[in-house]
């Protein structure tokens, strides 16, 4: 009898683009509410902007102490690298902490996973608030550089726009990989975004030329999309490249290497995320609380 009734009902449809969009849109609102934490907007603005500005000012003071304000090319290199790095940290922290918060703090992950929509659009929407905040931090840091520190921007949209779009895709793919990976972890999953962002910060030439790195780390810098994204964006913003070897490479080659490394990173991260999710379902990791 039960079988007959079930057969009489219309078949359950799969997820449509409309479902995915609805899930994405709802997750954006949720992410923003959690991120702003229902706080006073003025206080929230201070919290959000003080951190990246202070990070940039540390580098400026280090520069001033040693050079006394000469070698402004290096100062521009520092400011732009420090500003753009907010995006990497925002994306990595946004994606990973969203997935961990929903699993361990709010304990909603398993409910999201069993809904007809996919976790993927939800996760992207949920972390979008942090990504947007990171772009605000980029703009603010650059504005401080231009208005108070003498940074001269010579934007080249033909280089800047594609570098930023492709670079953002590369960073998102890293974030997606990390989010899936952190679902597998029992301890210290919360520390991974900071650890990975810190490691990338070190080897991507964000605040110093990669020539300064020990020899064994330099090949790693050359295969990372973040290195080429930073270099392409710097050229798009400042009109010239980084000091050292990287700055000698032609613009076309920099963009080509950015495209190639991103083209590798995206499918690898998507396949890895799908595998991580499958493993998380099979191993019961979606509602695990690590207590970390």
């Amino acid at each position, binding site marked *: 009898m039960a079988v007959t009734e079930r057969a009489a009902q219309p078949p359950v449809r799969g997820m449509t683009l409309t479902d995915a969009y609805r899930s994405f849109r709802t997750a954006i609102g949720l992410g923003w509410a959690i991120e702003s*934490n229902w706080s006073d907007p003025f206080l*929230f603005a201070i919290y959000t902007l*003080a951190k990246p500005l202070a990070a940039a000012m540390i580098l400026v003071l280090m520069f001033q*102490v*040693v050079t006394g304000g000469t070698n402004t090319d290096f100062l521009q290199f520092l400011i732009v690298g420090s500003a753009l790095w907010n995006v990497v940290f925002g994306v990595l922290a946004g994606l990973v902490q969203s997935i961990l918060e929903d699993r361990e703090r709010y304990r909603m992950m398993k409910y999201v996973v069993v809904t007809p929509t996919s976790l993927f659009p939800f996760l992207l929407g949920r972390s979008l608030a942090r990504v947007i905040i990171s772009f605000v931090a980029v703009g603010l840091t650059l504005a401080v550089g231009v208005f108070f520190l003498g940074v001269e921007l010579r934007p080249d949209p033909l280089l800047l726009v594609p570098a930023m779009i492709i670079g953002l895709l590369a960073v998102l793919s890293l974030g997606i990989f990390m989010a899936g990976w952190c679902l597998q972890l029992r301890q210290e999953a919360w520390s991974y975004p900071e*650890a990975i962002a*810190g490691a990338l910060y070190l080897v991507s030439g964000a605040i*110093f030329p990669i020539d300064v790195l020990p020899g064994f780390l330099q090949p790693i810098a050359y295969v990372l999309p973040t290195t080429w994204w930073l270099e392409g964006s710097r050229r798009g913003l400042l009109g010239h490249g980084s000091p050292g070897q990287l700055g000698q490479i032609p613009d076309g080659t920099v963009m080509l290497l950015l495209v190639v490394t991103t083209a590798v990173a995206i499918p690898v991260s998507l396949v890895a995320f799908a595998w991580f999710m499958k493993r998380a379902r099979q191993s019961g990791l979606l509602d695990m609380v690590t207590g970390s």
Partner: protein
Amino acid sequence: MSGYRATPATNAREAAEWSTRRVFANNLRAIVGRAYPRIIGLTREPSWIFFEILLPFLAVSAFVFVYRALEAPEEYIGFVVLGGAVTAFWLNVVWMMAAQFYWEKDQGNLELYFTAPMHLMSILAGMAIGGLVMTSSRALAVIGIGSLLFGVTYDVREPFLLAAVFLLTMIPLYGLGMLFASLFLLWGREAFHLAQLLQEPIYFLGGVNFPLRALGAVSGFVAAVLPLAVGLDAMRQLAFSGAETNGLLPVGTEMLILGAMAVVFLVGARYALAYLEHLARREGRLTLRWQ
């Protein structure tokens, strides 16, 4: 088996009247009990050590390479390594002291603290002692690895004075953490943002990666309120040759400032806790999760 020996009381009044010795022993037990998980965690959760060493070390390395790119004098590399080690203590104060009561509330422990027959200062003291021991291992590792990898040379002529300055720095630092623990709880959901706010901006104001006097006029204000900055400035003067010229104030003066800060922050923490306890009992709201 617990070492606790309970003596059954014959009536409620007798049960409520504790001797000074019993109160002292009970609070001492609370301090040890709260410090225990942090110290024992050193051996039971080695992954913590990896991250607590790795994260400060990555930041230290990045700043060292910036100085190398700028061809800075070698003592600046040492400044960064020492700053990185002290940063480990600051992170411990922010996340495991200041924000701790907020997390305890979320986990449901806070109301147990309020109802247990002990002073909340004992809990905070236990957290501080445990955190200090736990973080010392990480700070030593950062200094050891950083010094070896980056070839930092020290010129310590007064090791006992340096040790005294370090200990004197830790008292107001953790006292500040105790004070913040109550304030974070009062400010409720802003706790996470506050903890974030107390990182890079404090590293900047504290001169973690450059001599404090580079901040100019601001450094005077910083020296009056931030133990991290004053202690680090004094330790640099005692650990590196020629660093006296980069110091903000003489070491003796900075030690006096640290001593005064220790008194102010510990007394402030005591009053903040009393106010918090009063609110918790009157309104019953502070122990509610998600508030």
